[in-house]
C-alpha cells in the first residue's frame, strides 16, 4: 500500500497561510511539540478532532507565506496523512516533500465535503473521491519531487545521493 492513503477529508478554503497552520506564537517550541498546535490559527478544535490518516483538502495557495517547516510538521504530527489542494505555496510544498509528507495537486477540490472519504493513490496518480466515485488525476509529484517523497524526505534522499556519488 505504499503511496496510497485513504482517509477522511478536512476541508479548508483558499490561501490558508502557514501563520494559520502554525501561528508565530508557537514558533519558539521544539519541533517535536508543534503537532499540539496544528491549525491553531484557523480551527482551534481541529487538533482534538483530527484522526490519524485524515486528509486535509484545500483550495488554491495552501501553505502560503512563511517558510516555517513547523507548519508541515504540525500537520504530520497531528496524524494528517496527506494534503490535497488546487495549488500550494511553493515553500510549503517543498517542505512537505522534504519531510516525506504527500502534498498533491488536483484541478479542483470544490466537490469534496468535510468528512468525505478519499483515496490518494500516488502510484496510480489519482485522487479517488469515494463518496462520488469520481477519480481525478494528480497534476504534480513527478521527477525529483517524487523521488524525494519516495525516499522519505530530503535527508534520506541526500544521504543516498552522497552515498552513490562516493
Amino acid at each position, binding site marked *: 500500500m505504499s503511496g496510497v492513503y485513504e482517509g477522511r477529508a478536512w476541508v479548508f478554503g483558499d*490561501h490558508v*497561510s502557514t*501563520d*494559520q497552520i502554525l*501561528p*508565530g*506564537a508557537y*514558533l*519558539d*517550541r521544539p*519541533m517535536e511539540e508543534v503537532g499540539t498546535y496544528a491549525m491553531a*490559527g*484557523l480551527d482551534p478544535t481541529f487538533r482534538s478532532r483530527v484522526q490519524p490518516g485524515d486528509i486535509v483538502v484545500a483550495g*488554491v*495557495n495552501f501553505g*502560503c*507565506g*512563511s*517558510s*516555517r*517547516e513547523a507548519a*508541515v510538521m504540525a500537520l504530520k504530527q497531528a496524524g494528517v496523512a496527506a494534503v490535497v489542494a488546487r*495549488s*500550494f*505555496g*511553493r*515553500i510549503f510544498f*517543498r*517542505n512537505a516533500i*522534504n*519531510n516525506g509528507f504527500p502534498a498533491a495537486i488536483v484541478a479542483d477540490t470544490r466537490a469534496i465535503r468535510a468528512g468525505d472519504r478519499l483515496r490518494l493513490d500516488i502510484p496510480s496518480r489519482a485522487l479517488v473521491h469515494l463518496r462520488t466515485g469520481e477519480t481525478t488525476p494528480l497534476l504534480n509529484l513527478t*521527477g*525529483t519531487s517524487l523521488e524525494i517523497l519516495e525516499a522519505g*524526505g*530530503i*535527508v534520506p534522499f*541526500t*544521504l543516498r*545521493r*552522497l552515498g552513490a556519488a562516493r
Partner: protein
Amino acid sequence: MTAMTLTEKIIARAAGRDAVRPGDEVWAAVDLAAMHDSSGPRRIAGILEQFGGRLWDPQKIVLAIDHFAPAANQRHAEIVKLTRDWARARALPQFFDSVGVMHNLLLEEGLAHPGTLVVGADSHTVTAGAAGALAVGVGATELATVLVTGQIWLRVPPTVRIHFEGPLPDYLTARDMAMEVLRRLRADFAIYKAVEFTGPAVEGLELDERAVLANQAIEMGAKNGIVPPSGAVLERLGPAARAQGRPLAGDESAAYDDEHRIAMASVVPLVAVPPNVDNVVPVTALAGLELDRVYIGSCVGGKAADLRAAARVLRGRQARVPLQITPATRRVVEEALRDGTLETLLASGAIVQAPGCGACAGLHSGLLGPRERCLGTVTRNFPGRMGDPSAELYLASPLTAAASAVTGRITDPREFL
C-alpha cells in the same frame, strides 16, 4: 543560442549548462546560503550531525540572529544563545548577532551578488533579488542539505515580467507598486514562477526600494523576484560583484510566460485590507478609519528609505496614536541618525526600537491584542501574523503609515505632501 530571461540565465550558469528552459529540473551550485535564529541551528544542528557535521563552505554561509532578539522570554533567550554558541563553535565568518534582519544584511553588506544563486531558510529570501541575484526561500531541512552539499534542485520557473511605465510620483513608494501588482493579479498569479520587474519607474529606484519589489514577490506566490541591476544600483554593487561573467540581464528576445504593463500615473496610494495581502484598495476608500496604532518596520518596511519617507510626512507634525518604529538593521539607525531622519521621527513622538524583525512575525516587541487595529509597513497581514487572530492589520507604504499616524486614522499621504 537559446534566448533566456535573467532568471533562466542564472540557473543555467549555476547548473553548468549552456541553456535551460522553463520546466527543466536541474541541480544547481549555490553561491550563498543564509539562515536565521528561527530556521537555523536549532532546527538543523541534528540534521547536520547525520551528515557528519561538516559544512560545505563556511565562507558561503550567512547566519543572522533577527527573529528572537531581543528575547521576550526564556524560550527566546535559549534559542538566541544556542544560535550564538553554534556560530562561535564554528567561527562562522558571516555571523550577525542581533544587528538586523538577515535579508537586509545580505544587501547592506554586499553579500548577495548579481547573477548568483542565493538560497535562504526564510520565505523573504527573495528580497536579495533586488541585487539581481536569483534568491529563493526553502525550509530548514532543505537548507541543511544545502549546507552539506552546496547544491539544490530547482525546476526552472517560467518568468512573468511586470513593466512599470513612467516616473514614480512623490506620493508613492515601491510598496504601492507591489500592492498594485497584487491588486491587479492577486496573490497566486506567480506560483512556481519568477517575477522580473522592469521599466522606467524601477530603473529610478534605489536598492532599498528595489528590495520591496523583490521581497513582495513571495506574496505573489513567486519562486523568486528579480530586478535586473542597472544605473546607480549597479555601480553600488561594485566591480567585484560584477566579476566572472555573471549574467546581469536577460536576452532581448527571451520568451516571457506573461507580461503586464502598469502606468505609474494610474496608481494611487494603496492599502491591503486584512486578512490577505491582495485585498488591496485605494487609501481613499478607507480614509477616516480609526486606528489604535501604527507600526513601521520589517525587512520590507523598516529600511533607511522607509524611515526617510516617513520623516518626509512627519517633519513638524505629531503622531496622534502610538507610532512604533523597528529599523531593519543597526545601519538603518546610523543612517537615520546621520541624515536627521531619526531626530524628525523622535520629535514626532515615534518610539524607535531595537533593530531586527520586531513584531512582524508575532514573536515579541509589540504584538497586537484582540480586535486591535493597526496600520503597518510589515510584510503580511494574515490572521494572527502579528498577534491575536482577531486583530486587524492593514498594510501600506511608509508615507501612508506616517500620514495615518498623524491623524490617528487611515489617511491619504497626499494630504501632507
